[in-house]
């Protein structure tokens, strides 16, 4: 008998009795002031909330330095245009996914490793969750996932109209069966493994800004 069949047989040897999951009749509803709840929870996770008009998000976020001084920025393809539009010439040639592909490198494993040192990555998320300050994001590629992790600073844009109350509502919106990789993000990469003191930027971004885009 294969290991598989043996394990499956062992599990039926002395089965646990059937149990009906206790489903509550209702889920918590959207709080009266959802964005301030989200802001507080995100802050607990070390992130920062910014409100912005969709066309001007570049002006609303805090950049680590003058925008023109940035050399390594990854901007996801689905990020909406903003005025002032980042002039392509101001972005590093290794910065943009489309640039990468046009250089004929493809998004190779080497290209992913070359993402270092990446200063800022800008992503566009599907929706935000009020109760825990998280956003649901499906990276367009493993390169985009890597860019989100290797950057010193992470900026995530999300349509303000997309807010949901809880994770229950969130999973109603997610088609997990069709999602190769998707994640909830909340705050920067962090650790408290040395004497319980919180350090931001354990492996990935040291800061995370969430931009709620009002149309």
């Amino acid at each position: 008998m294969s290991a598989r069949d043996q394990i499956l047989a062992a599990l039926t040897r002395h089965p646990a009795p059937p149990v009906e999951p206790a489903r509550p009749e209702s889920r918590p509803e959207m709080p009266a002031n959802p964005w301030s709840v989200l802001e507080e929870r995100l802050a607990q996770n070390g992130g920062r909330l910014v409100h912005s008009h969709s066309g001007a998000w570049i002006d609303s976020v805090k950049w680590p330095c003058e925008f023109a001084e940035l050399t390594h920025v990854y901007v996801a393809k689905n990020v909406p245009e903003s005025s002032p539009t980042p002039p392509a010439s101001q972005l590093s040639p290794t910065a943009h996914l489309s640039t990468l592909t046009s250089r004929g490198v493809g998004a190779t494993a080497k290209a992913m490793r070359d993402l270092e040192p990446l200063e800022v990555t800008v992503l566009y998320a599907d929706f935000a969750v009020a109760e825990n300050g998280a956003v649901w994001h499906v990276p367009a590629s493993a390169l985009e996932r890597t860019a989100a992790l290797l950057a010193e600073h992470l900026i995530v844009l999300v349509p303000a109209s997309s807010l949901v109350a809880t994770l229950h509502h969130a999973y109603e919106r997610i088609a997990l069966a069709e999602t190769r990789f998707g994640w909830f993000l909340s705050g920067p990469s962090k650790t408290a493994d040395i004497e319980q003191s919180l350090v931001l930027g354990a492996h990935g971004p040291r800061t995370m800004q969430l931009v709620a885009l009002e149309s």
Partner: protein
Amino acid sequence: MGHVDRAREFVRDESRTKWHDESLWFVRAKRDDAADTVPDWEALRDEAATIKRDALSRLPDLWRQFETAATEAGAVVHWARDAEEHNQIVLDLLEERGFRRVVKSKSMLTEECGLNPFLEARGIEIIDTDLGERIVQLRNEPPSHIVMPAIHLKRSEVGKLFEKEMGAPVGLDDPDALTALARKDLRKRFIAAEAGITGVNFAVAETGSFVVVTNEGNADLGTALPSLHIACVGLEKIIPAPSDLAPFLRLLARSATGQPISAYTSHFRGPREAEDIGSPAPAMHIVIVDNGRSDLLAQPSFRDALACIRCGACLNTCPVYRRSGGHSYGTTIPGPIGSVLEPSRDPKAHAELPHACTLCGSCTNVCPVRVPLHHQLLTWRAHLAEGGHHPTRRRVAFGLAGRLFAHPRAYEILTKAGRRVARRLPTAWLDRLTSPWTEARTLPPIPARSFREQMRARARQATKGPR
């Protein structure tokens, strides 16, 4: 050496014990605050507890369903009866491809299977990438906590370690600076890794997906770059549907560290996208591991422990764990849940653990999936006594006590006499007699009258009283 001896070692340093105790209580308090922000907390616990028990009642169906869906998504599913099979499967996957550099994110299962020493002995470099795990790996010791692996260490000890291992300047003990050093060192390893190993927090039967939760993002970095992702999952980790993730994820981080959610909650389904021509095609292998879990499932008194989602709340709240340290348990999983799980593997070796408990019940109160921990610990004591696993001294003493407790009259006479004698003895003598309870403190003064005598006197007073 048993739990008591190892705990004695740990409490020798009084200030460290106090600090350890307080650090963990701090996390427990944060858990309470986080739970208070969730209006439906208790209903969530009920829901999560029953989803798990439902899943435990139909594991074969759910895993078959998972296997089909995961295979459809392009993953390869393996089954391992025990730790050896698990380790061999992982080794074969690496050797087939000639891979020698592996990064691993936190997984108690691979810890349980002894994967690191197994691979290292065969010339494979395996790097733990969770900062706490990396620290204990460099110190050559096991994690002392399931969520905070290096909670037993002071910053100065981490500084000394990094001095040796990462060229930290002498005396460096700033957590920010130390973390920055580790980040730099580990970044190189991530970039160089050929394979990434992760654990699994939840496997979803319906879709063949699985979820990995971290704060550092190390599981993501460790699987985004290398072409091979190996995920190791225990049989108890399965839940039926995607919507079932919600109650668990609402409970997990809040119970573990008091956060609303962890920084990264990643959902994997099949290997990552192929990005280029020429480099190895991305592959995902999932190793489903029994290693004693089907045996535990067959024990009605203890099978509920398989519902555990490894949040660590029961450790943080446990008065014994907080004061004796994780290493005192001598097991992969310490604390209340470890004391329930480990005796089922080896009753003889771990017979002491169910006694490392005051039966205060705090673990049961905080457990997000309602594992009846302290009831199980009590049941273990009975089982182990019946199995003859108790030391002779305790067997004799408990036998006598049992007989005495069955006869209230005899009990009263004997304790009265005992009290009378004890009140005349010098405290130091008494302490010597009642050791080890009085190793680090003295007995309170012996009262002249027993509780029952006092109550009787009160009752008399009341009937005689005015009016």
